[in-house]
């Protein structure tokens, strides 16, 4: 039968493509920020900071369009869940972009300080993990893949472990105040990456809601959560 709301459904499709592209943008920003730290590349760090305006502009555009869609089209059922998920994921991705900027700025603040290869290696590993998580969450969104979305909390475990060990690596630099200064800043980088991992889990929760209609937190800071 013919789709009686084709214009509206075309717009929903366009919004979904926008959010997937924004996921790519945010993931790339984190990847470049981590790369800048690991390879001490200030130009790359500046590129991440400059590039955030594009992410913010997209965020505002998607936000405006979802609001208009709610006001003008009163979506229901799967359409409503998609609009709601886009609103949430949009915010998570904008925050992810901000974390990339934080990481890039932390590099620029410390670019002249001595550092440690061990800690840089740890940050590289965390970066790979969280960018992988973000891409998996967005892939689950694109494919409506519940199973993949449910894998995100497990993927977050090593990130949390590395983050908890980060300050110990920084303390190893205590003999040299300049290196320690760098290490303490890198501890903040680690924290920013841990937050990106959490944002990816939050996006996966939205995917779960989109598919099942039931919103549940995959992780809870104050309680153990059992997943199917």
């Amino acid at each position, binding site marked *: 039968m013919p789709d009686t709301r084709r214009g509206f*459904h075309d717009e929903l499709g366009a919004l979904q493509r926008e959010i997937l592209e924004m996921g790519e943008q945010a993931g790339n920003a984190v990847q470049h920020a981590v790369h800048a730290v690991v390879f001490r590349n200030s130009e790359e760090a500046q590129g991440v900071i400059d590039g955030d305006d594009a992410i913010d502009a997209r965020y505002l555009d998607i936000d405006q369009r979802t609001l208009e869609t709610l006001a003008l089209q009163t979506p*229901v*059922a799967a359409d*409503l869940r998609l609009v709601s998920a886009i609103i949430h994921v949009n915010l998570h991705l904008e925050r992810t972009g901000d974390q990339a900027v934080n990481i890039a700025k932390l590099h620029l603040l410390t670019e002249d300080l001595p550092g440690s290869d061990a800690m840089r290696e740890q940050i590289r590993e965390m970066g790979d993990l969280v960018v992988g998580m973000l891409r998996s969450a967005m892939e689950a969104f694109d494919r409506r893949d519940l199973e993949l979305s449910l894998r995100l909390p497990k993927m977050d475990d090593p990130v949390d472990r590395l983050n908890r060990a980060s300050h110990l690596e920084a303390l190893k630099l205590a003999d040299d105040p300049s290196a320690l200064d760098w290490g303490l800043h890198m501890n903040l980088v680690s924290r920013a990456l841990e937050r990106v991992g959490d944002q990816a889990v939050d996006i996966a929760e939205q995917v779960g809601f989109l598919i099942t*209609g039931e919103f549940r937190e995959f992780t809870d800071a104050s309680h153990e959560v059992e997943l199917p």
Partner: protein
Amino acid sequence: MREIDVSSLSAWFGSKQVLRDINLGIERGSATAIIGPSGCGKSTLIRCLNRMHEEVRGARVEGKVLFDGEDIYDPRVDPVVIRRRIGMVFQKPNPFPTMSIMENAVAGLKLLGRLPKADLEERGERALRAAGLWEEVKDRLGDPGGRLSGGQQQRLCIARALAVEPDVLLMDEPASALDPASTLRIEELVTELKDRYTVVIVTHNMQQAARVADWTLFMLYGEVVEFGPTNKIFTTPEDQRTEDYVTGRFG
């Protein structure tokens, strides 16, 4: 508690079957919306709930409709009594145009037998208040009903239906001929009425169903596709056909 229990209900116009094996329970004091594309059997279904369907030549019903546990199609049951307890409001406001507003409100009551004038007027006022019309007409109760606006006329018809103190009010697209403000007024009224009456409303306007109904029934080709709490039908319907209909993927 279920006030209306429909089981294995089928209906025909001549040889054309328009309802197929409908099973449905309607709770007392709830508002139920019936949605579905044109010709799906929505209006026929509610007309079967107070034996209006059989008024059409060649129309026929099979199955059971229990009202408070009693089968309304039992041969011993008087359809007039059923229609008093299960009232109906139609798409197009149909007040008696030359009768006064008050006479319109009590027109159904008068048919039930003689009542002292004071009683009639008291019940007329009560019905006009319940229909949310009293404040607008109390100073001109002697004016002809036909002089009211469309939205007021529809509320007058609702008052007429309420004056006989029914238990259930069936509404067949009661707002589809009204302007937006009158439509919202009727919707507001439905949410007030469902505290005292059981309301079943047929509507083409899905947002109206979403706004006023506790339960929503989706019909297609004379069958019930899905019946559930309205918030579920409009957020996570179970049947793909319901999903496709409410999201406008077919209409």
